């Protein structure tokens, strides 16, 4: 019946951490992942139809060792990141102000929202040919399609965020003597930040999917192209390496956004 105190190390509750790490859940997770890898290997070895066509983990691993020493492989990362970031950042630059204005002004929303709603259901990749026709370089067309992928999500999330700002916040700010400028910068903007970051996270996911596909369709570089090229060239283990790389790259991007989001919205961390 002793009342133990939690032990903290660098802001982490060690007891809680230990409990989480050495739990049955973690153990089961590890077992499941190892078992999956093992079954995958067996399927590949015994050439089970369909699943067996996926290159075995062992061959993927040996090919990975070759890849990470290859400069071309790392260049693919750079190209893909370059495209993702360009498209994503442009989407932020245009999407954030647009979403905010749409949320603040009813007339502007009525004017632009239906247009957005009409264009939104068209899958971003369907834009690829038009983009290629329009933009002078293929690079620009890929960035444009990438931009589209993130853009709609951003605008809609911000719009929703602004519309959901609790009217009581605006009212108390008014009573306390805020100007319209104050209300925008000190109330509406921070109140919208959480949905802005939700939009960014979702948008980042879409961006990677679009970049990968666009690279396969209309480019000769990047991680998506690496995957496609390996398929065409019959170097199958590299397909899996490409996929895993894309997964990791996407994961890193979302993690960065999450970190940024946590940093900028500290009030959401409830004790």
């Amino acid at each position: 019946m002793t009342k133990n105190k939690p032990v903290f190390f660098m802001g982490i509750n060690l007891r809680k951490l230990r409990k989480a790490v050495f739990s049955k859940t973690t153990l089961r997770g590890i077992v499941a992942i190892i078992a999956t890898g093992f079954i995958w290997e067996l399927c590949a070895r015994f050439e089970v139809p369909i699943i067996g066509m996926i290159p075995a983990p062992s061959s993927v691993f040996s090919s990975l060792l070759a890849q990470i020493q290859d400069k071309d492989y790392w260049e693919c990362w750079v190209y893909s990141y370059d495209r993702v970031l360009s498209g994503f950042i442009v989407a932020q630059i245009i999407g954030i102000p647009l979403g905010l204005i749409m949320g603040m002004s009813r007339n502007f929303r009525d004017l632009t929202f239906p247009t957005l709603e009409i264009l939104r259901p068209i899958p971003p990749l369907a834009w690829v040919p038009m983009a290629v026709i329009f933009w002078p370089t293929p690079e620009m067309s890929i960035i444009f399609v990438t931009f589209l992928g993130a853009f709609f999500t951003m605008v809609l999330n911000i719009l929703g965020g602004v519309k959901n700002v609790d009217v009581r916040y605006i009212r108390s700010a008014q009573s306390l003597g805020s100007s319209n400028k104050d209300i925008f910068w000190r109330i509406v903007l921070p109140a919208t930040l959480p949905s802005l970051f939700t939009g960014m996270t979702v948008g980042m996911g879409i961006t990677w999917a679009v970049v990968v596909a666009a690279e396969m369709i209309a480019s000769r570089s990047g991680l998506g192209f690496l995957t496609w090229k390996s398929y065409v060239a019959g170097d199958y283990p590299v397909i899996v390496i490409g996929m895993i790389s894309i997964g990791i790259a996407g994961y890193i991007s979302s993690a960065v956004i999450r970190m940024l989001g946590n940093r900028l919205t500290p009030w959401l961390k409830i004790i």
Partner: protein
Amino acid sequence: MNEHHNPAGSGSKMQGGQMQISAISKYFGIGPLRKQIINDCTFTLESGKLTVLIGPSGCGKTTLINLLAGYETPDSGTITVDGSPIKGPGKDRLVVFQETALFPWMTTLQNVVYGPMVRGEKDKKELEDEAMHLLHKVGLAEFRDKYPLQLSGGMQRRCELVRALINRPKIMMMDEPFRGLDAMTRELMQEYYVRLFEENHLTNLFITSELEEAIFLADRLIILTNRPASARTVIEIDLPRPRDFKILVTKEYLHYKQNALEILHEEAMKAFSVGSGAAVADFLEAYSEVKAK
């Protein structure tokens, strides 16, 4: 309004803060959807007194406070503060909302200094000192850098009180501020609030649907009719101040309570024959059964 004395300064009874509400009415919606929420409502908030408005849930109390605060304008009638009609929201009439409207993205201190800061009054240092002084008074000094979500319900309500007080409003309007707290925290908050009031004697308007709370706090108790709301009866509550929870078990208190219940009951029966919305169904039921006895 710019004197630099202690905002919660004890016994500063010089302030005005007499609010006159004359024959205001308010409708919502248009055409066949038009509904009257407030009907020809007249009452006075006397300077330096704590007036409590009580009425069944859904009777239009919140609309009334929105009108007094200036967030909405009445369709007819006038509202004046110390003789001059109100124009929109202003820092002379501050509202403490149901639940709380502390800005979640600002720390306790930032919330408290928000008003004077956006109005550009005083320098930062002076403002913070004043805020800390008030926070200290309600036991929140250690929590200056916490965000509202990190505070307990009771602390949030106190922070909200301080955020209003630092502006030295003429009138404080409390819209069911302790709703949603558990009964015990609620009682402690009532004590805090009554103590702050007894120190400042600002004009206070307090809206509630709890009779016990109403009588415990009030100098004057105004009972509202059912929707469309108007002021029905004013009961002067002549219980001694400073008050504490011992008065809840006195005969005088009980007398006021029974008296008020009687009127509320009558109001409920009237509403019952009109058959207003489902929100008041519980209330109607309660009092029709009381009468059946």
